[in-house]
């Protein structure tokens, strides 16, 4: 009876472990900002998404990022990664950068001071916001006067969320509303900074017409021929002081080992000596990291319990098995010998049959023409 209870509890524990394992995968897959590598590369191609966060004093400029971009192709060529796609516009890598700040937008009916993200590069590839109307824009567009506003901002400025194509004025300069985005809601999201209207403008617009603390985030998705290649490349080529920068590999941040590492750093993670202002998506990602670290702890407990009970049961079974290894070994040996004996017997028979067949053939050859001749005679 006891054995059964231990067995059932072990099995339940293992099932709980599997459920937690699946839940972690599901949660990680549900954070689109961290899944760029999966979206970017096809099956069987390894790519990694790497994010860098800069402190207020790091002095990173768009020119510095442009220099980094120029060195990516060279590094990939050195690692023998070449473009294989037949599509003429295909790129091996994509990147984006952003700065956080505030900006004042004025429409014909209202004025709004909102948190702003100044974007450069293909920001919305990395951050696929859910759009209620319109489309994304890119920092690589010819015009830099597009903006995406969230539904709250759209409501306050226009009283509607179907306002793509309309104009808002930032410091007297008209900006076209490219799209209206849905603002993610939830406890983590609100804590991360998404607690008021948020607008996305080009980095140039934010720098010239708003207030900001400089570029605080750079993201890149690129081929990762060997584990850690992309992260190492970014770390080596950033040209910024290590103390002013934090580099995160998004692609593997929620896998088991990094989570376990996070658990081992319990208590140390809250310490911060850098003046880094995390953008809201990183705050959310870090929030999930904390939650998943806790879940990992439970995963470990359940797995250990399941393994422990399985071991105990195995030992009990071993002790009460009613046979010895030697017996079984002799039995196996006997069976093997019999098998080989049978095989040998079969081969022998086969050879004898073959021999008999040949002899018959020979005798037939000898008698055959005689029959023919006889036939002719007939």
């Amino acid at each position, binding site marked *: 009876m006891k054995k059964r209870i231990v067995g059932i509890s072990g099995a339940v524990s293992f099932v709980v472990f599997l459920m937690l394992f699946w839940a972690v995968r599901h949660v990680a897959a549900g954070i689109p900002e961290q899944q760029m590598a999966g979206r970017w590369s096809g099956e069987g*191609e390894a790519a990694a998404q790497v994010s860098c966060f800069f402190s207020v004093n790091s002095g990173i400029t768009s020119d510095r990022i442009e220099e980094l971009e120029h060195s990516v192709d060279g590094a990939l060529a050195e690692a023998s990664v070449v473009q294989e796609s037949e599509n003429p516009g295909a790129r091996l890598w994509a990147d984006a950068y952003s700065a956080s700040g505030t900006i004042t937008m004025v429409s014909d009916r209202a004025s709004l001071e909102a948190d702003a993200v100044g974007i450069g590069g293909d920001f919305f590839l990395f951050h696929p916001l859910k*759009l209620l109307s319109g489309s994304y824009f890119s920092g690589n567009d010819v015009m830099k006067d597009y903006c995406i506003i969230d539904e709250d901002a759209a409501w306050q400025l226009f009283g509607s969320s179907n306002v793509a194509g309309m104009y808002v004025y930032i410091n007297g300069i008209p900006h076209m509303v490219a799209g209206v985005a849905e603002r993610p809601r939830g406890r983590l999201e609100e804590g991360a900074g998404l607690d008021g209207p948020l607008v996305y403008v080009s980095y140039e617009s934010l720098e010239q017409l708003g207030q900001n603390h400089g570029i605080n985030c750079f993201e890149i998705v690129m081929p990762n021929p060997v584990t850690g290649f992309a992260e190492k490349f970014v770390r080596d080529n950033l040209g910024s002081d290590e103390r002013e920068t934090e580099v995160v590999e998004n692609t593997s941040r929620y896998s088991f080992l990094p989570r376990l590492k996070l658990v081992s750093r319990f208590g140390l993670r809250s310490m911060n000596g850098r003046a880094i202002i995390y953008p809201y998506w990183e705050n959310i990602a870090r929030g999930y990291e904390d939650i998943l670290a806790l879940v990992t702890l439970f995963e470990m407990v359940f797995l250990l319990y399941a393994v422990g009970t399985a071991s105990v049961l195995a030992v009990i079974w071993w002790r009460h098995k009613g046979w010895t290894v030697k017996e079984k070994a002799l039995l196996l040996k006997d069976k093997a010998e019999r098998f080989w004996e049978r095989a040998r017997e079969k081969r022998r028979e086969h050879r004898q049959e073959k021999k008999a067949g040949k002899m018959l053939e020979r005798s037939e050859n000898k008698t055959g023409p005689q029959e023919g001749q006889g036939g002719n005679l007939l």
Partner: protein
Amino acid sequence: MNENGKNRREWVKTAAIIFLSVMLVLTFFSNTIMNYSLPEVATQYVQSGTITAKIRGTGTVESDDPYEVKVIQSRKVESVAVKVGDQVQKGDVLLYLADEESEELETARQELKAAEKELDSAWDGYYQGLLDANVTDSGVQAANGGVSMETYRQQLTQAQNAYKDAQNRVDEITEWKDAIGRQIDIDTNTDSSLGDETEAYEKAEEAFQAADSRKKQAEIALQAAQAKVSGLENNMQTVSDSDGDTSELNKQIQTAQAEVRNAENVLAEAEVELQRRTVARDEAKQTLENKRNKILGNLTSQSKYTENDLAAATEDANQKKKALDELTATLTGMFSLDGKKEAIDDAREKVEEAQEKVDKEVEKSIGATVTADIAGTVSEINIVAGNTTSADTPVMKLQPEGKGYTMSISVTNDQARRVSVGDRADLVNAWRYDDMEVTLAGIRPDPQDPGQKKLLTFNVSGSVVAGQTLNISVGQQSSNFDYIVPNSAIREDSNGKFILVVESKPTPLSTRYKAVRVDVEVIASDDTQSAINGAALYGGEFVITTSTQPVEPGQQVRLADN
């Protein structure tokens, strides 16, 4: 056993019914259930159309050929007579300046004084040099026929002192002359030395006035008495005509006549008195005038004397100077004092320069107003009342009548490639502006960032004023393309850009939709649409623009109701 078997059969029957019911429900509602689990997508047709890439920008309208109004001296502004936007005619007052000398003129005068002082000290140095010159007496004697060095030095000192004395005398007389001039200018009536005479005259005048007034009163009293007599005489006539008693009236007439006589006497006395007073007043006046003339005469003659004295003293000083110069020239020939001489020449040059500067500033001196040199519109005012003008900064700008306007915007090289000179720009919010035309006139490197940016210059005409901010959009001609999709339909991964096309597959119960990837190349884009090219495109496909969940190629989707 039988009971058990029956129960088991019942159970199997129930289970079968439940199973079949569930299967039936699932069969009927499978589509609905599946639909709820599928991402809902919004689609649009791939169609042909035009793409017009526009460059937008914001700039400030400036005058094509602005006229700057400058005040070339530092003068304090008392008030500004115009406002931005005012139309002015040539000669209209723009600024009122405080009525005082410009700072430049004052500085120039001070510089002149300093230069003169320097010249004086240079001369002093020169003379000192002459006195201190280290020359042997015998050498001097040999060169000048026995005149000793000491003699020269004595002569020089004497000549110098004589000149200085003469010059001092000139200064003294000049001062004295100025004092007399000031004295003459002063109103002699207020001179203290005329106090007694003035007082006597004033008293005589007062007495005269009193006598005059008494005489006038006596005249009035006489007239009244005479009127009374004639009135009584008339009554007398009337009474005598009616043979009445006239004795009372006679008495009254006699009394009245006595009054008239009395009044006549008083008048005669007053007239005598007045005459006496008039004489006394005239005398006092004469005395005063005489005294005043005497003083003035004295001053004038003194002034004349001082003038003569000044002329004489100046002449004397000039002679002394000449003598000194001659002696100096003689000595200069003997001693090497070129350095000192040069110092004097330099100082003299400086004095001349300073004098020239003062003359120039005096010439430049402007009145208390600044007027418009041309007719036009005030487009900018850079000064307010109370501030001081500066020669370098224009105080205001005028837009000359009939001249055009320009506007510049800075764009990236990439943006500049999309426009060409002659392109007409559209105004954002065009309804706000009336009758305005903006044309691209030039593309040149932006001086602020010549490598990265270009400056687009536009000609602006119509109802526009300098300083107005305009938002414009300018772009190349529209181009036609076969396949155009909304920008939101374009997706990208490491295999390049692609669109997701919805393909339908009819099934017995309903139609199923599947998202299919089509690789494309984006060949042109504008604010909302992109022109694409792809081997698998034939036009008219449903392309996915938005979805409720991320859609993978090959995934089944459901179409939005609209």
